[in-house]
Structure formats: C-alpha cells, structure tokens
C-alpha cells in the first residue's frame, strides 16, 4: 500500500518536471522568436525610411543636375524594385533575404553614384536642403547597418537556442525553424561611404 503511494508520487513528480521543462523551453522560444520578429521590423523600418527619403533627394538633385538623367533614373528604378521586395517575417528565409539583400544593394550603389556626381555641382553642394538630405541619408545608412547587425545578433542566439539538445526536440515539435542571417560579404554590414 505504502509502496504504491511512493510510486505514484514519483510518477507525478517526474511528470510535473517534464511538464515544466516543456513549458519553460516552449515559452522561452516564443519569447525569443518574438524578439527576432521585432528586430526584423526594425530592419524593415530603416529600409523603408531610406525609400521614403529618395524622392526628395532625387528632386533636389534634379533641380541642379538635370544632365545626369541616367544616374537619376537608375536610382528611381532601383527604388521601385526595392519597394516591391518587402518580406513578411513569416516568409523570411535564405532565399528571400538574399533577394532583399540584392535589391537593396543595387539601390545602395545607385545612390552612391548619385552622390558621387553631385560632387561636380558646387551649387548643389552648397544647397542647404541637399546638405540636410545628405545628412539624413547618411544617418539612415548607419541605422540600416546597426539594425542589421542587431538582427544578426538576435538570430544567432535564437538559432543556437533552438538547435541545442534537448530543446531542439521541442523546437521541432512546434515548428520553430532557424532564421537566416544577413550576409556580411555584400559589404552592406558596414554603412556605404557617402563621400563628397
């Protein structure tokens, strides 16, 4: 009789332990996944900020340097392309992030060409409006670099967490999948230089 009780208690205790471990790891993963998603929206916000800045910039440059038709249309086209490739967090994977990297990278290089040609227009360089847009663009490039770096850091912790044994079992059961990184190889990790 007494033995039966002990066995029962032991079973209950073991069961509770397993339950709380499951609960702990599951909730931990949910929390971390939320963090990754939050950081992703920070990255997207900064890309959006850059997109919003471009029309103004293009118009200002146009006023002074209307011979540079090609460079200007390059920027406009790259912007249009980048506007189309926005990734929902749920669709975030190696392929989509690569595409985003590519279109945003093209926009970056189109922009830096635009900034380079403004070098030969002294009136433009002295324009207050242009100077402020330039400062805003620099700040935005900076913010993009920072948010990307922070995103990579958050993803690194998250990925390490869901891959570790035995939590990977829970991760597999509830469909927590590893998230992709921004590759540093594109050189976008460091803010592109906007020199004058």
């Amino acid at each position, binding site marked *: 009789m007494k033995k039966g009780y002990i066995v029962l208690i032991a079973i209950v205790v073991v069961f509770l332990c397993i339950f709380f471990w499951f609960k702990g790891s599951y909730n931990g993963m949910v929390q971390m996944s939320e963090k990754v998603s939050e950081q992703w929206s920070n990255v997207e916000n900064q890309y959006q900020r850059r997109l919003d800045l471009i029309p103004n910039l293009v118009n200002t440059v146009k006023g002074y340097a209307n011979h540079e038709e090609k460079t200007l249309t390059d920027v406009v086209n790259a912007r249009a392309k980048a506007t189309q490739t926005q990734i929902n967090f749920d669709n975030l994977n190696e392929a989509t992030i690569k595409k985003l990297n590519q279109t945003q990278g093209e926009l970056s290089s189109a922009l830096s060409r635009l900034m380079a040609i403004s070098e030969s227009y002294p009136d433009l360089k002295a324009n207050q409006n242009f*100077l402020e847009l330039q400062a805003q663009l620099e700040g935005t490039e*900076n913010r993009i670099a920072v*948010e990307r770096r922070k995103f990579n850091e958050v993803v690194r912790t998250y990925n390490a967490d869901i891959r570790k044994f035995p939590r990977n079992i829970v991760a597999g059961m509830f469909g927590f999948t590893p998230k992709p990184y921004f590759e540093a190889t594109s050189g976008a990790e460091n*803010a592109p230089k906007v020199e004058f």
Partner: protein
Amino acid sequence: MKYALLHILLWLCITHVSAQDFPDPMVPPRLVNDYTQLLSKAEQNRLEEKLQNFNDTTSTQISVATVPSLNGYEANDYAQRLAEKWGVGQQGKNNGILLLVKPKTRTEKGQVAIAVGYGLEGAVPDAIASRIIRNEIIPEFQNDRYYDGINKATNILMKLTSGEYSTDQYGNDEWGEAIFTGIFVVIFLLIILFSRFKSKGKGSGPFIFWGSLGGGLSGGSSSGNRGFGGFRGGSFGGGGASGSW
C-alpha cells in the same frame, strides 16, 4: 584538455583585441572621457560639471569622448558602437548622446561624430546633428579651439533635449517611498495607541519604536546625488551625424 586551453587562449586574444578597439569608460565614471588630453584639466572639469548637472536635472546623459584612433571604423559607426558599449543614457529611455572626437594628426584628418540614442532621435534629428557639426564644431576646431567647439555643441544639444525627458522616475520613486513610510507611521501610531489603552504602565515600549522610526526616516531622505553615477544602459540605433576637418 589541450584543445580547451587553446580555446580559452584564443578567446582571450579575441576579446582582448575588440576591447582595444573600443576603450572602457573611465573609472570612477565621468561624462567627459578625454583619452587624448585634447582639453586641459580645468576645461574638462568645467564641461564635466555642466554635463553632470544636466544629467541630474533631466536624466539625459550627454557624454564627450576623445580617442586617438578610430581603428579603421567610420566615425559614425565607431561612435554608435562605443556609445552602445558604454550604455550612455538611461535604460528604457535611451536618452544618451555621445560626442566623439578623433583629433587631427599630422597625417590624418580630424573626425567628429555625434551619436544620438534611440530616445532622442526626435529631439536631435540627423540633419540638426549635422548642422551642429558643420556650423558650430568644425569652424572652432579648424582654429584649434577644441573646448569652444565642444562647449557650444553641448550647449545646443542640452537646449534641444531639455524638454524631452525628466527625472520623473526618480521623483515618483521618492514619492512612493514617502507615502509608504507615511502609512507605516500611521499604523505604528495606531498600534502604539492601542497598546497604551490595553496595558497602562508599560510605557517604555513605544519609545523604542519612536527612536527606530526617526532613524529610518532621516536615513531615507538624505540620499543626495553627488558625482556621476555612471552610464545606465541606453541604446543607440545609428542616429546622428559626422564630419571631418
């Protein structure tokens, strides 16, 4: 075992290198961290006092740092990473600003950057930070008037950010504490009164209570803030601007 040792050694090497890239804040903590002796002692103290007062009244931390080299980083990037590492500003409010100066040398241009914490990006937009650098800092720096440039810039930054945050949190905490102790005192008084009613003659007990209460109260209220308490974990998202001369 061998591998473990190698691992530790490697890890030490790596952390050592990255620590050298970005210096630690000075101990005891200060808001003006002049690693290149760009300013005289008197100038440093004047700046320090001004910025500490500002921190005490608004909780916004404006820090000044000078470094001998940016170690290959862009000025903006370096300032953001250093500010994030130090945690300039209050955690949660992210109301920190770092003014970074890399003095001019014979072969290199001087670099200056303002890193603005997340919480102050509205008060100090990039265009404004850039204007401060172009119009206030660079002209003074070009004439080797480093103190004047930094002083002017920090004055403007203080004006811009003074309405943003207040020390409300500390104020609230103190009020909460005061109310709490007030309620405690009332309850104690009631207990004492009741005990008096119940057992006349035992008058010595309550006086002990009085003594201990008095001590507790005076101890709580005299927590003045002298000196700078250190950076409090503010976060930076890359806002601000940079320039060179």
